């Protein structure tokens, strides 16, 4: 089948401002959108620039906007789109550096700010720390995050305020706050209680829809809000 890709283009070396370019190509219904981008880059326009690596939805490199919603290019098949006109744009809220490549640094900065690592200064046992399956289940969902930024860059609150920590950083905080082995939950809750923390979330659910790992992002944010409100982590 023939599909038309309308792709956001911006090359800082040659373009004064961004524009869109159309490519008509043959595609199989089972092709990934990433396969189409690879084809265009390989045969039609070598300057088309985007990030990618694993090509099956676990590395988080290729978050882009496909027909107006955030997706990983390697996790959407042509047949999933239900149309032959495909609009491809960089994610919103981060500076475009070239074509579909955005500046990820502010995103990782927000991530680093929530202490995204286990804190526990008690001497560990000789073997593993014990944790029941129930305790593990409490934060299992948020351990799936691949830091692709689909959620954060789909969030209208983030679009209007780039200082907002954003869903991905809150997901990272959640992953440690509810880990029975961690001891810095109170500190992370203080960070999340900041003006740029969880209360910027207006439960719009874009993040949950955008997550390629099917993390219940809005629910995780709600759990962090509740822990702040009650002062209890349970």
């Amino acid at each position, binding site marked *: 089948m023939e599909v038309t890709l309308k792709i956001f283009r911006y090359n800082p070396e040659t373009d004064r401002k961004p524009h869109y370019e159309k490519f008509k190509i043959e595609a199989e219904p089972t092709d990934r959108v990433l396969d189409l981008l690879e084809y265009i880059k390989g045969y039609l326009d070598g300057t088309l*620039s985007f990030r990618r690596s694993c090509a099956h939805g676990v590395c988080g490199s290729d978050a882009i906007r496909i027909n107006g919603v955030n997706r990983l290019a390697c996790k959407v098949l042509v047949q999933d789109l239900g149309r032959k006109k495909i609009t491809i744009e960089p994610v919103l809220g981060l500076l475009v550096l070239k074509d579909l490549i955005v500046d990820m640094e502010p995103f990782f900065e927000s991530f680093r700010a929530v202490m995204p690592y286990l804190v526990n200064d008690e001497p560990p046992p*000789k073997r593993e720390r014990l944790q029941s399956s129930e305790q593990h289940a409490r934060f299992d969902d948020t351990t799936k995050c691949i830091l692709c930024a689909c959620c954060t860059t789909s969030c209208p609150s983030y679009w209007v305020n780039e200082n907002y920590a954003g869903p991905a950083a809150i997901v990272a905080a959640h992953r440690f706050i509810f880990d029975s082995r*961690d001891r810095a939950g109170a500190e992370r809750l203080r960070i999340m209680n900041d003006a740029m923390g969880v209360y910027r979330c207006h439960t719009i659910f874009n993040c949950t829809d955008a997550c390629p790992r099917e993390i219940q992002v809005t629910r995780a944010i709600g759990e962090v809000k509740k822990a702040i409100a009650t002062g209890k982590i349970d």
Partner: protein
Amino acid sequence: MNNYHQFDIIVIGAGGAGLMAALYASRGASTAVLSKLYPTRSHTGAAQGGVGAALGNQGEDHPEWHTFDTVKGSDYLGDQDAIEFMCNEAVETVYELEHMGLPFSRTSEGRIAQRPFGGHTNNITGQPVPRACYSADRTGHMILQTLYQQCIKNSVTFFDEYHVIDLLLVNGVAAGVVTLDLATGELHVFHAKAVIFATGGHGRVWEVTSNAYAYTGDGVAITLRRGIPAEDMEFFQFHPTGIYKLGILITEGVRGEGGVLINDEGERFMNTYAPTVKDLASRDIVSRAMFLEMQEGRGINGKGYMYLDMRPEVVNKYAVEDGRKRPDGSPYVVTGEELLSKLPDIVDFARTYLGVDPVTQPMPVQPTAHYAMGGIPTDMYGQVVIDEKNTVMPGLYAAGEVACVSVHGANRLGTNSLLDILVFGKYSGLKAVEYSNEVAFQELPEDAADFARQQLENLRSSQGSENALDIAQEMKSVMNDYVGVFRTEEGMAQALDKVRQLQQRFKNVQLGDRGVIFNTELLSVWELGNLLDLSEVTALAALKRKESRGAHAREDYPKRDDENWMKHSLAWIKDGKVELGYKPVVITKYEPKERVY
């Protein structure tokens, strides 16, 4: 010198091996990690089923059993001192990761959960033993995330999207690297006392692969260009269960949880090829069995794939047939819900890419190029050794898939790669600290960046008309057909010839992007040059090895030949030509025997 940086230790690559090395290195010396990807994009994150360690949480187990299984799995080409070291270190290393916060799945006692994997056995009964410590089916993801988190906690310095192009050697020792900053297109020189390569593998040589786009063998290609040999390149693992045509990995953990391979007659077939452990034989054996079934016309619908079946009713049926029990002695019975909770990602992959729900339908799978047993030769502390006598090159280290210690020999067991990156990442970091604290910086020449610049300029200024994607496709296709699961003299010679033609055509490759900012095309094409070099070395080393051992299976030499071929190959590129040498295998306790599973 513009864009000049100085650190005691440079780590190249930010997957499991690189991050583990960086954690240990940064505790004792100034350290920077250079990675062509953002660290969390590294391919360690794609590993699924588990990391091997004889914790014995779900049945009796011992590091000695793990050692023997690994030696046997390697088809006796692994160095036994290094294997024993790795398997002994495994237990403590897994606990260390747990203490760092790795969210392992748990047993009912709250301990790290373990599942059976191919080739891991109880050495008394020969039956599969649960040795793979897992976090659902995203163990690699959790290792990568946990190590990256620890690096943030410890303020490790990263240069993300810095693509290493060249290694600097001065007076016969490592002195730094030259990298391209993807964002600006500028070259940067990193001056160092010690350099640790942790750049991963090169599965992108083959058409059907589980490997990421980034897996282009940069580390081996760069060191080959600097006169350092590559070891055992003829041994490349084909994982039995890649998604048909796409190659995306479906973990061996599926079979660990009771899934079985099924042929077109609706029958399990692994019982014929490996009567004791059946579907949990090691990967080389299972991949060959699938090919043989297909050759006999028992591929599904006569085509090049088999079914991997994990429907609960099928799992339970064969569990009864095998007499499989839970650790508490009760019969092994699973529900769809349980399988979904243990293997959520592969269920998602099957639904996304195949439109198949593995809880109710079998998955079409075929062998997929998966793992490089060969690589940069090292000793068991990550120190690079550069000849038949294992002479150490001072200041140079390699760890993880890019390295060949050799702990995997001719065939790696599942779960041993995640173990390898942790153990040898750690020790290369420790050794690099020890070394860099004792030596001074070598003086770099003024033109340190020239060789890197020249390589990239040649590509950028080429006026030819060859298309890089066409060359890549032809390389992948010929390597898949002739240097794949089964090999013959004629086929490999043909592949070698073809690859050499492609190397000539590569000189006339045409770039569409001549800019500097994020010129990802330039780097992809440079990576293709690496893949072509590694294809040539692989095909030649394979052609010369006239026996079958582990992943190297020849139709014309179907038997292992310990008398003539119990040795590691070493390949050098000298004046553009590949030269081969050999060095002995280290044997300590285990005399070579025929492998039966």
